[in-house]
């Protein structure tokens, strides 16, 4: 076991949490585990695996992380599958199927031995999902980890993919709301953040305070922040409206900081719409950040007094988790995973309109003590529920459940 890494997490989550992980992992010591996804860097899945895999290894599991590669045409097809699963109609032809399956076949040849021998194979998202159909000699349990909101998929694509993922022993979704009927157990495991990464680690106070000068902000004025892509579902225009309404009653500065996804041509258009809506207001700051600006995002979140996530539609909403972890109450749209993270009067407020957001901004800026108390609760809430250690506990529990049968209660004997 890698005691040093475990000790770093233990300092944050406590000995009891790490002890429990060791207990669970003890029963899986000889297990060969393989994670397969399609990118080593960029995106939430890779971020989670960068944290999860070393932690599993630190606990003594025999873990590998394999990444399938592909040409541009493969990723074009998988991008359209991804969009379709989120409900967007796409063109999905026989040629698309051929590109998708052929690429998986090529990659399978490289991974065949590892996949056949593994005790647990976690296939992340649709890109490598087809591998299971190529591996009839598999010995272990195969789990499809779907990080996507599948609640309203574009049916023609989902019908194709459902036939593939039905072969798995189980699947994992982030919330019950995201599932679709499948002929195997669908486990619910919410995602998590890693408190040791650049995006979430503690920062020196001068680095946090440095964002005021760096972005031409007033260090003596309260800061209200939304970190989001320039995407209509994040309601950036609603955020500006809420800010303008609340500023009539209480002085503060509003920062909307984000970037655009490389595959989202609409981002640029929305960015300009947001700039126009802000009308050069001296207390509204629109920041276009590069995707790797994790430390800057961290500093901004820590510098903020209140964080907004006024989404109209949201997946799990890990930016909410990040803000709560930094002790900030969050005013969030009443949608997706925000609903299970933001609890009215405890960790923030759920809102439905810019007017609702404006009212809650005023409330939280006016009642400093309440704001600080909610921030403390928010931090504790994330510590107990949405850190990578809980995520890992769920994975280990699932693995034990998979090898122990379907009983409602599984008793595991004492460590020898």
């Amino acid at each position, binding site marked *: 076991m890698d005691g040093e890494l475990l000790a770093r997490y233990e300092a944050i989550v406590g000995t009891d949490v790490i002890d429990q992980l060791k207990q669970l992992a003890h029963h899986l010591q000889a297990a060969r585990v393989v994670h397969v996804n399609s990118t080593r860097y960029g995106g939430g899945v890779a971020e989670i695996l960068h944290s999860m895999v070393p932690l599993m290894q630190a606990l003594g599991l025999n873990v590998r992380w394999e990444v399938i590669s592909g040409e541009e045409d493969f990723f074009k097809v998988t991008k359209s599958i991804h969009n379709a699963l989120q409900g967007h109609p796409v063109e999905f032809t026989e040629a698309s199927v051929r590109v998708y399956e052929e690429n998986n076949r090529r990659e399978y040849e490289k991974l065949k031995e590892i996949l056949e021998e593994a005790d647990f194979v976690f296939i992340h998202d649709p890109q490598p999902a087809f591998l299971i159909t190529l591996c009839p000699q598999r010995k272990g349990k195969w789990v499809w980890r779907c990080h996507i909101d599948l609640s309203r998929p574009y049916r023609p694509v989902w019908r194709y993919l459902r036939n593939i993922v039905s072969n798995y022993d189980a699947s994992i979704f982030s919330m019950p709301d995201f599932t679709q009927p499948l002929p195997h157990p669908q486990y619910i495991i919410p995602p998590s953040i890693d408190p040791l990464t650049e995006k979430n680690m503690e920062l020196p106070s001068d680095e946090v305070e440095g964002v005021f000068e760096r972005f031409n902000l007033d260090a003596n004025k309260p800061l209200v922040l939304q970190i989001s892509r320039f995407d209509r579902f994040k309601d950036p225009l609603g955020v500006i409206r809420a800010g303008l309404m609340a500023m009539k009653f209480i002085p503060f500065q509003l920062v909307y900081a984000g970037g655009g996804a490389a595959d989202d041509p609409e981002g640029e258009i929305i960015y300009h719409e947001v700039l126009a809506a802000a009308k050069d207001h001296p207390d509204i700051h629109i920041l276009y950040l590069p995707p790797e600006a994790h430390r800057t995002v961290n500093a901004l979140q820590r510098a903020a007094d209140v964080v907004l996530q006024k989404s109209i539609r949201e997946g799990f909403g890990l930016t909410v988790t990040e803000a709560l972890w930094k002790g900030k109450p969050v005013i969030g749209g009443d949608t997706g995973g925000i609903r299970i993270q933001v609890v009215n009067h405890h960790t923030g407020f759920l809102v439905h309109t810019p007017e609702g957001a404006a009212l809650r901004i005023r409330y939280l800026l006016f009642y400093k003590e309440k704001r600080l108390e909610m921030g403390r609760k928010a931090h504790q809430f994330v510590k107990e529920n949405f850190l990578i250690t809980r995520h890992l506990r769920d994975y280990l529990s699932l693995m034990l459940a998979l090898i122990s049968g379907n009983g409602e209660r*599984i008793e595991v004997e004492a460590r020898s």
Partner: protein
Amino acid sequence: MSEEKTPENAVSFAVKDCALVSISTGVKAYILAELLEHLREVEVGCLYYHFWARQLRPSFDHPEFHNDFAAWAHRDLHDWILAERLNLIAPHEFRNLEELREELINIIEERVDESGDLPWRKAAAPFYFVKSQIIVLDTGKRVKEPQQLVEIVPTLSQGSIFYHFIDARRRTPDRIDDFRAWFQAFSPQYDDLAAELAAIDPYFLTLTEIREQLSLVFRRYFGVSK
């Protein structure tokens, strides 16, 4: 059970830990009539999940409502009367989950009879039926004397606290926590300590707070300062 006989024929307390996995059943209800229909058919494991397992899964620890049905009636169906009635259900008062199911159905049927359009009112968000599997781990730790709990309880994981203080109410013959069940073997020596534990209401506390309260009670009882 978390008790076993030691060679000396005294009773020792086996410390266990547990973890929960949540499994979606794919069954959901948009209206109360649907909820009622599904309630008659879903596996009883769903009732365990929605009544008992709230504290062991990612959810807010200070719920105003003590089961998911009450929370849904309040938050998504916006029927405060039903929410309050459902909230009063104490699951450990029922001998088994089938009896709990019956009570739940009775309360909802009663409310349906009172209100003409309520069964068809669309909720703001559907109710998702989820079931769970509990992985119970034997930590190998054994407590021979109640006084040892002063040292052991502060080190217990949330899973252990859940297993011994909440889940126990479903397993023990008297539907009490494992500590009190263990003290019965020493009766009447620790009866007053058991009474102090009985006063801790797990429904209003987080698992961390329960651990703190238990630690405090044991320290005070055995006269150990922090």
